[in-house]
């Protein structure tokens, strides 16, 4: 079975795709940083960031529909946290409603905080989508490793990338096997089979972990992780990196001008 949900579109070719993963990593995190540090209500600055991000996404030849759909992932989390702010923040009252027994008021400043949080998180997730959709995960991992992320963490992430698909396949096969023997049954019974499946999946993954370790040991693995480095920083990376940093600092300067 084939899956491409992790780094779909990362095998396309564009100027952005050819950049060194480290350059893209730095730029996307700087982007998130300046977006998060923008004072609330700087609508012009937000617009400029959005335009910049749209440009980056376009340059990476990413389909707009895919990016928008993916960016919605963050919304449940944001809304869960921020949805109640307008009701609790104090300030000028925007509206007051009588709900059965209790009086609910919404304030302007609370609404502003909510909108700011939604915009900031949406711009940030776009930046991460841009990074992960234009960089193959193995390259990104190598970039992280070169940026001194501890090897063990890189290794864990690379195992996740490799075995996620296998675990998903295993889960799908178990689901098929269950469905083929499922003749109705109550809801409670259904839930308990799901519990058993999760347990089985856990044990299988654990056993696979042991077999993988044996396969690694058989090829001389002794607990020290060794790798080769293939990344090279090109002139294009330098231009893009410096250009990106300049544009980002320019936009963040606007905050003080208006």
């Amino acid at each position, binding site marked *: 079975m084939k899956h491409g949900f992790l780094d779909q579109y990362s095998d396309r070719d564009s100027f952005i795709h050819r950049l060194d993963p480290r350059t893209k990593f730095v730029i996307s995190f700087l982007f998130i940083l300046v977006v998060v540090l923008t004072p609330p209500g700087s609508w012009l600055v937000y617009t400029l960031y959005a335009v910049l991000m749209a440009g980056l996404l376009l340059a990476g030849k990413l389909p707009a529909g895919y990016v928008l759909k993916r960016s919605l992932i963050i919304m449940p989390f944001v809304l869960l946290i921020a949805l109640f702010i307008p009701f609790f923040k104090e300030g000028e009252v925007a509206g007051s409603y009588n709900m059965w027994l209790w009086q609910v008021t919404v304030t302007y400043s609370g609404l502003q905080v909510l909108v700011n949080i939604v915009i900031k998180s949406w711009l940030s997730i776009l930046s991460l989508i841009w990074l992960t959709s234009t960089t193959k995960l193995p390259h990104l991992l190598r970039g992280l490793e070169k940026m001194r992320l501890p090897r063990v963490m890189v290794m864990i992430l690379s195992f996740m990338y490799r*075995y996620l698909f296998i675990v998903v396949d295993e889960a799908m096969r178990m689901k098929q096997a269950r469905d083929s023997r499922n003749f109705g049954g109550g809801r409670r019974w259904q839930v308990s089979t799901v519990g058993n499946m999760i347990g089985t999946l856990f044990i299988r993954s654990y056993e696979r972990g042991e077999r993988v370790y044996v*396969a690694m040991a058989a090829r001389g693995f002794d607990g020290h992780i060794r790798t080769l480095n293939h990344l090279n920083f090109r002139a294009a990376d330098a231009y893009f990196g410096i250009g990106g940093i300049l544009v980002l600092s320019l936009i963040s300067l606007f905050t003080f001008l208006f």
Partner: protein
Amino acid sequence: MNEVIKINDLSFTYPDGQPALSGLSLVVGQGESVAVIGPNGAGKSTLLLHLNGIFHSNGTVRVFDRPVNDKNLRWVRSRVGLVFQDPDDQLFSPTVFDDVAFGPINMGYSEAEVHRAVSKALEWVGMAGYEKRSSHHLSIGERKRIAIATVLSMSPQILALDEPSGNLDPRSKWSLISLLRRLPMTKIIATHDLELVRALCSRTVILDRGQIVIDGATSLILNDRSLLVAHGLAPDDTS
């Protein structure tokens, strides 16, 4: 004949008390292709894991006349290439290159040597040009080949293969057999695929309940129907 593997009275019990091998002795000479056949649970995989020092018991296994113990572990692992049954266990890296390069890097090869070893190993298994692919996008036959390349890249002198034809369709199986036939190393193949044994190995060992039942020429053993029936390798027509 040079002895490359010498096993003398090897016994092994799993930590949970399940006996796997008892009093097993086996000598394999240079360049031989030996099939180890037997029913499931006979101890075939356990035997292979001993060749490479994954399990080791009191120095009764000798490779090129050196005991397999903690001191020789690194050396033994560069001599004996172990290919596991499920290529998904053996291929754990994001790309094919990383997997094939894993052994050579651990052996301390220089970067240029690693690249040379990887391209040579991939060429050997007919998978040149697959370096940048991800293993999970390859077919099972292709993954089997890459799994073999991951040990060939360490230029081992002995290949130990666990069920090389498991899960393969006949076409992939026969192309794998012709690939294995081209490899000049000493081969020890644990399997219950008798077609593969007939095509590849001149010598056969039947293993059952952790013990060697018989050790002899493949042509003799595979034609002894009652022997195969007795050890669950052929259907019993009388019942």
